[in-house]
Every structure is written in structure tokens, then in C-alpha cells.
């Protein structure tokens, strides 16, 4: 069954049809939630809540990009969660081990296909990226994740955040500028060979 038919069936209350859409989009929504919130368990909850909200509001979907519609819902869910966390004690973006010590090179994001050195560097880069993303405001973080990580074009991103294209363009430029400034300090910490290799690729 194609996506419009599944959406139509879900609008009629067919939960099985909606669950097929869930299977298609759950990775994308979890990625968005994780990058915006920065914490896996909360991102799971936000993703689940977003799907529940999507099923309840699916009758309001008037066509267009279903992906953008879902991303908008999960983004709003993440904003709600961030507001809730702001009222309560905040959870740092950095993971902690069992001794309650911060993990400098988190293995929970490691790619086992790489060599240990490459994995370490990549882990360092991921940790740096994660930290820099966490330092952005939620609006900047959202637009960076949507365009640079999720790969949406400006029109789709505009649809997700509900702002005009000009806002997307300026907000993304400023978010990238801050990300670049943040990453520079970590970039210089990387091995010389890795930096030269990356610069040659660019």
C-alpha cells in the first residue's frame, strides 16, 4: 500500500495502517528528537509522544509532505520536552558512566567498522559535534539538524518550522556560523593527519 493510501486509512482510524507509516518514519523522527534534545531516553519518549500526537491529529493533515508534517510534530514535542526540562533540573548532553563520570569519547555512538584510531577520532568528532549542537539555541539547533543532518531542502524546512524561506536562510546561516566557531576549538585538537585528510577531501 502506498503512503497516501496508508494516510487515508489512518485517517479512518486504521491503526495498523498508521503503524506501517510509523515503521517508515521512526528512524527519522528519533534522529530529529535525539539531535534536538540530546538525550537518548528522552528522545525515545518524545518520538513515541510525537507518533501518538500524529495519530490523534492525522485528520488535520491536508496533504503535502507527510515527512515534513511528522517532523513538525516531533519538533514541537521536543520543544515541549525542553521547556519541561528547563523547569526541572537539566540533564547534561554528555553521557555519564556508572561512576557518574563524564564519558569523553562516548562509545554509544561508535561505528565498529572503523579502526580503533579512526573510531576514536570519529568519536571525538561526534562528541564535539554533539556538544556544539547542544550549545545552540533550540531554533538554531532545529534548523541545522533539519537541513544538514536530515537533508531537507529550504522549502521543506520552512514547512517544518512554519517560517518563511528567508527566515530559514538567515537562521541556518547564523547557526552554521556558531557551529563553525564552536567546532574550531575541537578541530584543532584533532590529529594533524586527520585534519589534512579532511581538508584534502574538501
Amino acid at each position: 500500500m502506498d503512503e497516501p493510501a496508508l494516510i487515508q486509512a489512518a485517517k479512518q482510524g486504521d491503526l495498523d495502517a498508521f503503524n506501517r507509516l510509523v515503521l517508515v518514519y521512526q528512524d527519522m523522527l528519533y534522529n530529529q528528537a535525539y539531535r534536538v534534545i540530546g538525550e537518548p531516553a528522552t528522545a525515545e519518549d518524545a518520538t513515541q509522544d510525537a507518533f501518538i500526537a500524529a495519530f490523534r491529529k492525522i485528520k488535520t493533515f491536508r496533504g503535502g509532505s507527510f515527512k515534513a508534517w511528522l517532523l513538525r510534530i516531533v519538533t514541537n514535542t521536543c520543544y515541549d520536552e525542553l521547556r519541561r526540562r528547563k523547569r526541572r533540573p537539566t540533564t547534561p548532553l554528555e553521557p555519564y558512566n556508572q561512576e557518574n563520570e563524564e564519558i569523553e569519547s562516548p562509545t554509544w555512538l561508535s561505528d565498529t567498522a572503523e579502526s580503533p584510531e579512526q573510531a576514536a577520532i570519529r568519536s571525538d568528532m561526534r562528541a564535539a559535534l554533539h556538544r556544539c549542537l547542544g550549545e545552540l539555541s533550540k531554533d538554531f539547533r532545529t534548523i541545522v539538524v533539519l537541513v544538514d543532518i536530515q537533508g531537507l531542502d529550504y522549502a521543506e524546512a520552512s514547512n517544518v518550522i512554519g517560517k518563511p524561506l528567508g527566515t530559514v536562510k538567515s537562521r541556518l546561516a547564523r547557526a552554521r556560523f556558531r557551529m563553525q566557531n564552536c567546532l574550531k576549538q575541537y578541530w584543532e585538537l584533532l590529529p594533524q593527519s586527520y585534519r589534512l585528510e579532511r581538508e584534502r577531501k574538501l
Partner: protein
Amino acid sequence: MTKKMYERDWEALSAYSDGQLSSSESARLESRLPESGELRAALDELRKTSDLLRSQPKLRAPRNFILTPDMVGLRQQAPAYPALRLAAVLASILFIFVLVGDLYISNTSMQAAQIARSPAAEMAVEAPEDLFLDEEPAPQMFGEPEDSQVTGGGKAVVETTEAEEELVVESEAQAVQGTAFPPTSTSVEASAEAAALETKELMEETSALLVAPTGTISEAAPAFGDDDTALPLQPTHTVVERVEASPSTLLGEALPGQKSAQLPTEHPTKGADILPTPTTQLMTTPESAADSQWLSGISTLRWLEIGLAALAIIAGAAALILRRR
């Protein structure tokens, strides 16, 4: 280059790196790039950052986020739930209708009863006077027969018969007035009229019977004077008995005004020992009969109300339990 200019160039470079600039804007920017090393460096940094962000692996969802009916409030309802819910609603509506109807009927009946009882109270106040007046001559006639004989027995007998006739006429007039009594309820009116008619007939019979023995003064006069009261009083006594026995049940349904009207029909002589019994019956029987009739009607409605309320509560509670499951 001012900060504002720099931000504008940075924004153009960001959009240019994403291929989101229009052709004219892209051409303008591309014409400036060879001349400005700062722009080229900024573009390189921008691309490096974007590349780093895009190189991030797509995370897989740690679990499936498939929804269950409980999550979205789609619970399987028991088949009996809609029926119970409907029954509860219907029982509640019927209960309200019956309750309103009951209140209306009760109000109307109470008004009718109040109106019906008000003349009864008046007549009840008047009744002892009548009784007193009726009873008073009796000792005079029984206690002083010799005096009446001495002062003129025939005259006394004539006066007695005249008094009897007047009483009969009065009783008839009061019986007729009883029919003219203004009731509010149609049922009460009908029963009152019927009872009044019966009472009137009875009055006529009574008057006929009373007139018959007393009409012959020659027969009645020596009877009083000779202390042989058995023979002339016998017909009167039978009339009183008839009044006491037969109309009591009929009058029980009639308006109280007619019962009081009945009292003067009793013969003053020797009726003193008989009168109290019918009087008390007449004063109490119609009220209790009306109350019992009213209560029987009300009790049916009460039972209906109780049944409907119980049905509504039970069905509602059962539906609630099924829904919570």
C-alpha cells in the same frame, strides 16, 4: 567590511553552498569570489562544517514505536456497553418525565384536597352546633313530656312536626348546595355530584318517611303525651338507621358538605344515641377514602420512579465498569 555586510555575505555563502541561491544571486557571488580571499575562506569553512554535520551517521531507532490501541485511547469496548449506556440514558429521561408528572399531579391533587377540605372544616365547625341543636330538644321532649302536656301537648307536637319539616327542607337545601360546591378537580366534581344526587334522593326518601308518620298529628300527639313512644318513633328510628347504615359508604366519597347536610335529617327524638356514630363516620370516612385513593395513585408513581432510578443507576454503573475495563 561591516558586521552587517559580513552577515549578509555569510548568509549568501550559506545558501550558495546549499544551491539555494537564485541564478542572478549565484552569478553575482561567483563574480566576487576570485577577488575576495576572505569570502573564499569563509566558504571553505562553511563547507567543512556542513560536511561534518552531514557525515553524521543516521541513528536507528532503539525500538519500534508502533502504537497500541491503549496508547491512542482506542479501547475494545464490551458489546453490552452501548446497550447499557442507552438503557441508562433512557431510564434517566423517563425518570425525569415521571418525576415531573408526579409533581404536577401531586400538586393538582393537593390543591383539590385543600379546596375540598376547607368547607369540610367549616361544616365540621358547624356540625357540633347542629348536633347540639339537634340533641338539645331531645331531653326537652323526653325529659319534660308532662310539662308539654300541661302547657299544651298538641301545640308542642305541632311545633315538633314543623321543626321536622324545616329540618328536612334545610337538609334538602344543604344537599342541593352541596352539589353547587365549586370543586377544582373533575373527578372530585363528578363524585361529589353523584354523591350529592344520591344524598338528595336519600333526603327525599328520608323526608317522605319522616313526613309520613308525623303528618298525622292525631296519631303522633298522643304518643308523646302517653309516654308510649315506641310506636310513633319506630318509623323515624328506622330512617335514622337507614341513614346511618346505607349512605355511610356512599357519603364517604362525597364532599363533606353533604354529610353535614345529612345531620339535620336525623330525628331529634331518640336520635341522640344514634347520631354520634354516623357523625364521626361521616367526618372521617371521606378524608381517609380520598387519602387512600390519592396514596394508591401516588404509590404507583413512586414505585415507577424508584424502579426507573434504580435501572438508571444500575445500567450507568455497569456501563462505567465496562468502560473502565
